[in-house]
């Protein structure tokens, strides 16, 4: 394992994203929407930080997942990943570099949510910690889709429904009880509950951990079976 190569992938990705509108918009859309909506709309009896919590949950379910899968699939399709492997960048180094980048950028986005939500000090740290758990889980799931797809089209066809389930189910669950019964088993619902403090406790973290473990297991199985370049 070479930290030099992990950093090389990280820095490449950072520069590439600034020129990749499709990925850049994923990182910026929800934090910006949260700022705009929070300042533009005031509804009587609306829970505090409603838009921050809603968009932060969507952000967790969407941004890391789509970015991770899209970048891996694009690298496969355009053969850049093969070139990296030929240059002795190992699969784990590549995935660590990319995963660290997605985590770092999404945490920066989470910081905007935190500031918009008025969190400061320990409260902000707690909010960031909860967001980290969700973003990490989404990054793993995005990695699963990315390594399991041959090209961008295949990745998109899987990413869109998965991302919609994780992003929108917690929002739909607010208005639909049967959906709420299902969504409590997914990590984004628990992230939503934790940041909005509607429910909190070890059960929430247990569900997130089970989701993350399921993602890591799927990742390990696919990676072992097919490798990064199948």
């Amino acid at each position, binding site marked *: 394992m070479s930290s*030099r190569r992990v950093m090389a992938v990280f820095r490449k990705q950072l520069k*590439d994203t600034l*020129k990749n509108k499709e990925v850049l918009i994923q990182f910026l859309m929800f934090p910006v929407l949260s700022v705009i909506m929070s300042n533009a709309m005031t509804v009587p009896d609306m829970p505090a930080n409603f838009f921050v919590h809603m968009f932060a949950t969507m952000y967790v379910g969407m941004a890391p997942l789509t970015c991770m899968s899209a970048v891996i699939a694009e690298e496969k399709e*355009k*053969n850049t990943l093969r070139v990296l492997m*030929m*240059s*002795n960048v190992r699969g784990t180094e590549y995935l660590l570099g990319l995963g660290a980048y997605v985590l770092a950028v999404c945490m920066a986005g989470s910081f905007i949510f935190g500031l918009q939500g008025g969190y400061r000090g320990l409260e902000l740290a707690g909010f960031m910690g909860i967001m980290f758990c969700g973003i990490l889980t989404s990054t793993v799931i995005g990695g699963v889709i990315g390594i399991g797809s041959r090209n961008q089209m295949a990745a998109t066809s899987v990413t869109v429904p998965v991302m919609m389930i994780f992003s929108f189910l917690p929002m739909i669950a607010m208005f639909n009880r049967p959906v709420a019964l299902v969504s409590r088993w997914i990590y984004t619902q628990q992230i939503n509950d934790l940041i909005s403090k509607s429910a909190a406790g070890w059960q929430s973290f247990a569900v997130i951990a089970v989701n993350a473990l399921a993602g890591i297991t799927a990742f390990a199985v696919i990676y072992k079976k097919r490798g990064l370049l199948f």
Partner: protein
Amino acid sequence: MKSECIRVRNLFRGFNGKNVLDGIDLDVAGGEIFGLLGPSGAGKTTLIRILTGQLKADSGEALIWGKRSDKLEEADYRRIGAVMDAAGLYDRLSCYDNLLLFTRIYGLKPDRIAEALETVGLADAAKKPAGRLSKGMRQRLVLARAVLHEPDLLFLDEPTSGLDPKTAAAIWDLISRSQQKGAAVFLTTHNMEEAYRLCGHIALLDRGKIIEYGVPEEICRKYDSNHSISVLLKSGEQVIVPNMKASAGQIRSYFEAEQIVSIHSQEPDLENVFIQLTGRRLD
């Protein structure tokens, strides 16, 4: 005596029950340009993928500097450069940034980038995104990336395929310069001129088997069944005479009359050798 760089013995690789490589034997010495010629689907890229450790052989031996190609380590890859059939460039990144990534991967100083871009004639396009380059410029950028770390062994898979003659000639020049610096080059091509001009040894590959192997000129001579000489006269007439003692008088008379524009032996080129051996064309 030059050191052994690549050694392949009795190499087999199949896909879907069909042998794509069928008992390959070959050797490439250090500092040599070796050409693997064959039509599309002959198994050239599969062999490169095995030699670069991207693919495992079903059986047989593929050694790079005496090490199994599927067991190459970081230090070995540091000595290898490759240009594969698909470019693998980051289209949104500039030429400079494409190379910067690899200087970081290899732990090189960024100064190497300007030098490499200068070498391939892309110094003026350093800030241009790779996606906006012409096909020839992209190929030159790929070659710059492959030689950035000054490898001891270069794998070039059809490096001039689809390029105009001027760009192809520039790439041949680059390949020759790499060889002059001591690199061994493993080149796959179906361009006869490329193989003839560059390669010290070639192998003709057909349906996974090497059907001929040796020095290009010697192979052409070996399959010269005509044994004739072509003489172009100033009158525009082309005279073909048998390559034997009895023709000496006739050729001397042309010399004495100062009628000769050019005189050539009539051995077949590599394309015709391939056709003689397989009944099919190379491309």
